[in-house]
């Protein structure tokens, strides 16, 4: 199915800048995880090794994904989406309660988090929809109804888990993709007005107590440093403690003395910021910025809408994760559980990010390839 000349030429166009940026982040991420988990004893202190396994596994999965021409995914778009939504529903049936939320499906010792993969499936589904949508005139809200529903269904399921962070990411990814399409200004205005109008309703009926708490704590952080404000406060202190050059590897006291809970999952950034300082954090942000902007560049060079939306979508996943995670740890955004790509520990998270990067690579490598023959379309 993959025509030899296309794949051969694709291999020549391997996207080195994308690969190097991602690899650098991954390496920094593992090194940082080593430091972050050094405060633990037992199996937790070896999470960085598991992370390497996940990176390798994600790499293999990514390799496979790169090898398959992304355009084949187009046909699978809604199937994958349906599978994603189905597994999200399955979470409610099967998942075990972990700290008040159920996000995982377990097969023996293997745990997997459908909400993570849903991000990729949603991007593919949205790409397919826009690919199939012949319109090039300004879209009205009505025209965006289907993609909005495509987003809304998994987002609500995820919100029910409850996982405000991932639901937010899905919504933001959708909005980013929508922003690429030509939406009428009037529709944008109506949308903004509607969201503003709906906000109090969402606040009262959709959000759970603890989610509301997090936002109130964010707005008045010093009220409750010992409990709900603990994470935000100590993570800010850790970042500030880093100063210009940082305290050095393994020398961040906020981390070493356990003031950063969840430093391997949601809060690896303060660990890094404390050890490497402003110099280190700027480098890391530049890497994420490069990755995000490079994704937009890949999207803009894509040969078809499917590839373009895929590029924007994958870029949006990486961008929003990085922005929200760093934003919440540095106290400019409320604390919601959003991982930092390739820095946070976790199989589902790592493989999802690797898949996103693989898809970007895929689109990037095939930007020169011929449009598939009409008979295949």
């Amino acid at each position, binding site marked *: 199915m993959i025509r030899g000349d296309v794949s051969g030429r694709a291999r020549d166009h391997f996207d080195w800048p994308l690969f190097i940026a991602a690899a650098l982040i991954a390496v920094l991420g593992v090194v940082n995880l080593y430091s972050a988990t050094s405060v633990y004893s037992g199996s937790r202190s070896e999470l960085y090794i598991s992370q390497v396994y996940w990176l390798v596994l994600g790499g293999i999965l990514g390799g496979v994904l790169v090898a398959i021409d992304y355009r084949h995914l187009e046909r699978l778009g809604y199937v994958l989406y349906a599978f994603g939504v189905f597994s999200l529903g399955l979470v409610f049936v099967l998942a075990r309660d972990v700290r008040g939320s159920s996000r995982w499906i377990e097969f023996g010792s293997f745990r997997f988090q459908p909400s993570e993969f849903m991000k990729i499936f949603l991007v593919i589904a949205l790409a397919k929809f826009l*690919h*199939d949508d*012949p319109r*090039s005139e300004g879209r009205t809200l009505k025209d965006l109804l289907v993609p909005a529903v495509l987003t809304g269904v998994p987002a609500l399921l995820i919100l029910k888990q409850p996982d405000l962070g991932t639901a937010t990411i899905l919504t933001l990814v959708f909005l*980013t993709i929508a*922003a*690429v*399409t*030509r939406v009428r200004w009037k529709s944008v205005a109506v949308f903004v007005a509607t969201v503003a109008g709906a906000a109090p309703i969402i606040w009262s009926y959709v959000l759970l107590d603890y989610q509301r708490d997090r936002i109130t704590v964010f707005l008045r952080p010093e009220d409750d440093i*010992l*409990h709900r404000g603990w994470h935000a406060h*100590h993570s*800010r*202190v*850790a*970042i*500030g*403690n*880093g*100063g*210009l050059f940082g305290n050095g590897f393994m020398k961040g*006291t*906020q981390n070493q*003395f*356990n*003031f950063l809970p969840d430093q391997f999952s949601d809060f690896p950034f303060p660990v890094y*910021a404390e050890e490497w*300082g*402003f110099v280190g*954090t*700027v480098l890391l*942000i*530049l890497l*994420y*910025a490069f990755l*995000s*902007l490079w994704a*937009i*560049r890949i*999207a*803009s060079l*894509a*040969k*078809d*809408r*499917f*590839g*373009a939306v895929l590029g*924007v979508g994958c*870029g949006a996943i990486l*961008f929003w994760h990085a*922005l929200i995670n*760093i*934003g919440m740890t*540095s*106290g*400019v955004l409320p604390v919601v559980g959003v991982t930092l790509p390739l820095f946070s520990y976790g199989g589902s998270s790592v493989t999802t990010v690797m898949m996103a990067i693989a898809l970007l690579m895929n689109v990037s490598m095939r930007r020169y390839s011929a*449009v598939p023959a*009409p008979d295949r*379309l």
Partner: protein
Amino acid sequence: MSLVVQRSDVSEFRRRFRWIALGMALLFLGLILRLFQLQLLESDDSKAIARENIVRRVTLATTRGIIRDRNGKVLAESRPSYNLYVVPERIDMQNVWPKLVDYLGVGVDERARLETLLTNIRASDGPRKSQQILLKEDISRDAVATLRTHDAELPAVDVVPVPVRSYPYEEVGAHVLGYMAEVDAEKLSQLRSAGYVEGDRVGAMGIERAWESYLRGTRGWEKVLVDAKGRRRPGGEGIIEDPRRVDPIPGRDLRLTLDAEIQRAIEKAMRGELAGGVALVDVRTGRILGLYSKPSYDPNALSGGSGKQVIRDAFRRLYSDPLKPALDKTIAGAYPPGSTFKPFTALAALEKGLIDPRASTQCRGALTFGKRTFRCTHVHGSTDLHKGIAESCNVYFYRLAAELGVGMDVIAEMGQRFGLGTRTGLGVNAEAQGRMPTRAWMTLRNKGQFRLGFGLNAAIGQGATTVTVLQLALAYAALANGGTLYQPQIVRAVETSAGTVVQEFAPRVRRQIDVSPENLSRVQKALFAGVNSEAGTAYKARVLGVDMAGKTGTAQVSHKLARGAEAERVWYFNREHAWFAGYSPTRSPEVAVVVLVEHGGAGGKHAAPIAFEVVRAYQELMRERSPRAGVTSAGRAPSKGQGSAP
């Protein structure tokens, strides 16, 4: 083909890619600016907070000095007690709580009480539920050990050692030693600069209070590294600046002049009486060997370790008892001395040359003076000074005042020379002053009216004349030693915890009383007869082998209870105070003893036997301790490094 082109047309998006990219870039720039703010502009604040987070200054407790008696017996020391703290909010009532009560080994009632307490706090809204609260004080050693082994199963539970003052002699000498109490807010504001903090215990009474600054010691501190859960972490070089530690200085020990065994003997001798006070003073030094007030109380119950409720209850009992256990009857209570004062009246008359000691007076059991009749105990017949003292004839002394010109002022002056009616300056507890009423004072008190009858009362130590037990003991010591009035002394030396004497207090003479030895000797002989002649008032109380001179007294109670109160109380509280004051042995005296039995009745019957008992105990103890049997050496403590008394 057109379909293909249309479906794949990316041109629609193209212009917007730039805006998206610009938006992303700007948002990342915003993050960088935020990090610039945190890591460069506000970094110093964060660094300070991060440092504060892990560097904690912990105070290092100091140990309070030990109070010992003159032979080294411990009267007050600190023992470790263990308090149990829990964080109500964080304690698991289903799984952890049953284990905790099991390990504690508390009874059903106690368990229910603690459970209610916890449940209430957990249900309340206050900040208390997230803080450590004191659940139980002074838990047993066994419970501590069990809790320590099961530490891991008991999150939010903490056992904290706290030193608690312990008084092995319990009620014996509580008034002198005092007790400890938690420092209150008002006192704390004054003491904060001296290093006191909330929850500290401070000497609240007696020597504990008066010598607080010696006993207390100085806290030390140490800077340690702690993690977020408050666990200690080693290391800290480069994080903690020097000095990292200041060692605590333990409090000074005190060596008292008191003798624990004598205190015990006094307590035992007083067992038959409800209330009163006893003082035993070394005639040659003014050192106090025994000072005991009854009823007493257990300072252990007040000093903590047993829980706030127990302390509150103990205080309530202390202050609601009509026998006033809180009052130190040896120095804080002023009582009319009654006949024990007669030797001073006699001396006043003799020194002024107003009487001939050999001249006799007829006692017919009473003396009518003006419109009033002043009573005597019985008909003494022909009475001279010697007999007047020995057999305690009131009429003889009335005559001195009424007919021989021994006025109030003369009597008061003599009393004052012997330290009566003046605070002794013991410096341990608040002292009553007592009173030697003068003519002027009585006139003032009676709205300008002075009646000669006042002087008659003063001559026999009644009426407005009041003294404290300790004053009288020192005065009798002066009678015994030829007129040297000593400063009373109860703390003999300050020592380090290693036993080295830091400061030793030599006996201090307050005054050499200028009385002629001849007159003094006359009085001494009369005091000897008071005990040893068959008609002497204390004759019946004599104890074989105790060589004593002294004077009994029976003092009227001035504020009689009105009828209408319970009959039993009226009977008791309207009864006279029984006194005995004396010294022993009669030829080279060593100790002066004063016994006051409140509402005890006749002195000869109720106070004198106690005095004999106490002195006998003293003699036995001296014999036991003396290297050469039979040679007594009061005031000379056998312990090392004490120096010797002059």
